[in-house]
């Protein structure tokens, strides 16, 4: 008798690899959204496993808000070159300059990304786009499929989704339409960190405890950068912090944390009582359905 002892991480890893191979086999032009954040780093690691010993058979695509952490951009470029992968960067600034989107008061660029993302998909003629979103992140995402259909306008219709059964995925679409693919659908934040620890995956240093000048806004700790400066009355202090999510620097908060290794992060997350988005994302606080509304328009 064979005892398998597949752990939950083994099962999640195999499921993600299966999904990525389905896409490589069934689509003409996939692309993988890679921001240098931990979820997309794990997704890239899985892609490396899925196609080894061959190279990853699709390009990496980064939607660049222009409000990035320098460490993360450096990490992004180095990782792409190590893998011999092609990196396509689509800049929000280009859409602002061309007048396709307008800067919003406060300088938050997250909502502007949808236009840039859809332009990148159109220009790259991608018929499948891998995203690192997880169902545990957010309520609207909990309803996502592994293969999520997008119409010719990039829109998601949550009330009219294809049923997804067994491990049989439906990637049928017409020219101009595309499928968003979420290989990490069933992963939780804790799974991601356990996997980073198990596999020894490198992530940008800002995910671990470091000293940083921060100020408090809306209950979040924002780092002092060119894109997020303290307003009158906001006091800057130096604290030991780390980032739980890495997005637009102007709206991504840090958390006070002494965790400096993947194992310490796992311990910290296992005990935390606040979700990663609740702790660190100003953009999700806009309303109960902020994410759903953005996703319907074509957001990640």
């Amino acid at each position, binding site marked *: *008798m*064979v*005892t*398998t*002892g*597949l*752990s*939950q991480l083994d*099962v*999640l*890893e*195999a499921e993600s*690899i*299966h999904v990525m*191979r*389905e896409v*490589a*086999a069934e689509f003409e032009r996939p692309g993988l959204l890679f921001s240098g954040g931990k979820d997309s780093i794990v997704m890239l690691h899985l892609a*490396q*496993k*899925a*196609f*080894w*010993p*061959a190279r990853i058979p699709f390009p990496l695509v980064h939607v660049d808000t222009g409000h990035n952490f320098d460490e993360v951009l450096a990490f992004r470029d180095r990782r792409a070159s190590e893998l011999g992968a092609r990196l396509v960067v689509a800049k929000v600034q280009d859409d602002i300059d061309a007048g396709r989107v307008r800067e919003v008061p406060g300088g938050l660029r997250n909502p502007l990304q949808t236009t840039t993302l859809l332009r990148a998909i159109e220009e790259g003629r991608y018929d499948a786009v891998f995203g690192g979103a997880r*169902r*545990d992140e*957010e*309520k*609207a*995402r*909990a*309803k996502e499929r592994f293969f999520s*259909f997008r119409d010719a306008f990039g829109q998601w219709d*949550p*009330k009219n*989704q*294809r*049923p*997804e*059964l*067994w*491990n*049989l995925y*439906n990637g*049928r679409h*017409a020219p101009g339409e595309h499928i968003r693919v979420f290989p990490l*659908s*069933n992963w*939780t934040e*804790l799974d991601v960190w356990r996997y980073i620890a198990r596999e020894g995956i490198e992530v940008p240093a800002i995910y671990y405890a470091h000293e940083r000048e921060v100020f408090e806004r809306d209950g979040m700790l924002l780092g002092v950068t060119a894109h997020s400066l303290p307003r009158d009355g906001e006091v800057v202090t130096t604290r030991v912090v780390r980032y739980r999510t890495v997005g637009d620097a102007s709206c991504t908060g840090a958390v006070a944390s002494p965790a400096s290794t993947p194992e310490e992060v796992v311990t910290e997350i296992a005990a935390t*009582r*606040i*979700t990663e988005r*609740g*702790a660190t994302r100003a953009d999700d606080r806009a309303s*109960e*359905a902020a994410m*759903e*509304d953005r996703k319907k328009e074509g957001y990640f």
Partner: protein
Amino acid sequence: MSDLLRFATAGSVDDGKSTLIGRLLYDSKSVFSDQLASVERTSADRGDDYTNLALLTDGLRAEREQGITIDVAYRYFSTPVRSFIVADTPGHVQYTRNMVTGASTADLALVLVDARKGVLEQTRRHAALSALLRVPHLVLAVNKMDLVGFDQAVYDAIVAEFATVADDLRTRFGAHPEVTALPLAALPGDNVVHRSEAMPWYDGPALLEHLEQVSVERDHGEQRPARFPVQYVIRPMSTERPDYRGYAGTVASGTLRVGDEVVALPSGRRTTVAGIDTFDGALDAAVARQAVTVRLAEEMDVSRGDMLVAADSPPQAVTVLLATVCWMADAPLRAGSKVLLKHTTRTVKAIVTGLAERLDVTSLGSEPVDELRLNDIGRISLRTASPLAVDAYADDRTTGAFILLDEATGTTLGAGMVDGS
């Protein structure tokens, strides 16, 4: 090392399902304070008398507005010994479609019964769909025991009544789900995470204990003959590996070992497994659910959609099949309908050659029909344009399953399970 259990629940708003899931999440510390604060705020805004834990799972705007669940929601929680994926399937709209979807990947079905109402039509329906989808374990959770004074006689009567339902299912489907009954009260939390002191007559585990302990090791087909659908051919064409050719895929069932004799279907050619590769190193054997890359001893024409199978126990390669389908499209299915059929990694054209009968999942009876409508379940016959290597779904939940697609619109029309011969 913790493992994974996938379970599906179903039911309507008033049987306490959302409260139970909320309890499991809350008591296992998987609900975060900001989520709870958001739910409390929304509950208060809506004027609910109590914090409505259903709002934890009902994420879409339309769901919140209408107070109903539209779609399967997936929830995640973990304990030190096991991680859980919960497919929470709604009881309102598209009941069958959602339940079948949630059950397709489930190791266990959680059937809730209100102790005051006993076994209802929806209890039978839920149990029948779980049996049809061959979910290996079933938990009958007799909820709201606090509202019947924690009376053992009430519980025993419901368990006895459900036993006859389970017997009927065994007779009808030949399915043998392992049934475990539990008395609980989700609102006060009796027997959910912690054992109840109010029911000294019950000496079994609390629900979460049972979910942690139930053995699913044998359910993934590791003891079955090997089946390996080829997903993708890996050819690096690099200077280090100019001649490498590997067949990437996920082991559907059984165990594939280096040196095993295998047959490639549908060609029927024999060869042996020369190597099993992964990024992390070569393996001697790969078991069901593992994603690997297989090298073969001889160079032969094998590509996506082919299946490598144990030479001593191959499946049938057929172009005619009988199957039970759950129809999920608005336009009805009729004899003569042309569809695409996706089975493992192979998609073929197919024509519906006949409709045998429609199954009534409540009475378990069946009647002849000339069409299947949205959310109907029925037996059909199909002819495919090229052969498929199928097992009976009763034997293999992976190589016995397929989906039907609309070639013109691309939508998923239905789910199918190959009948036994």
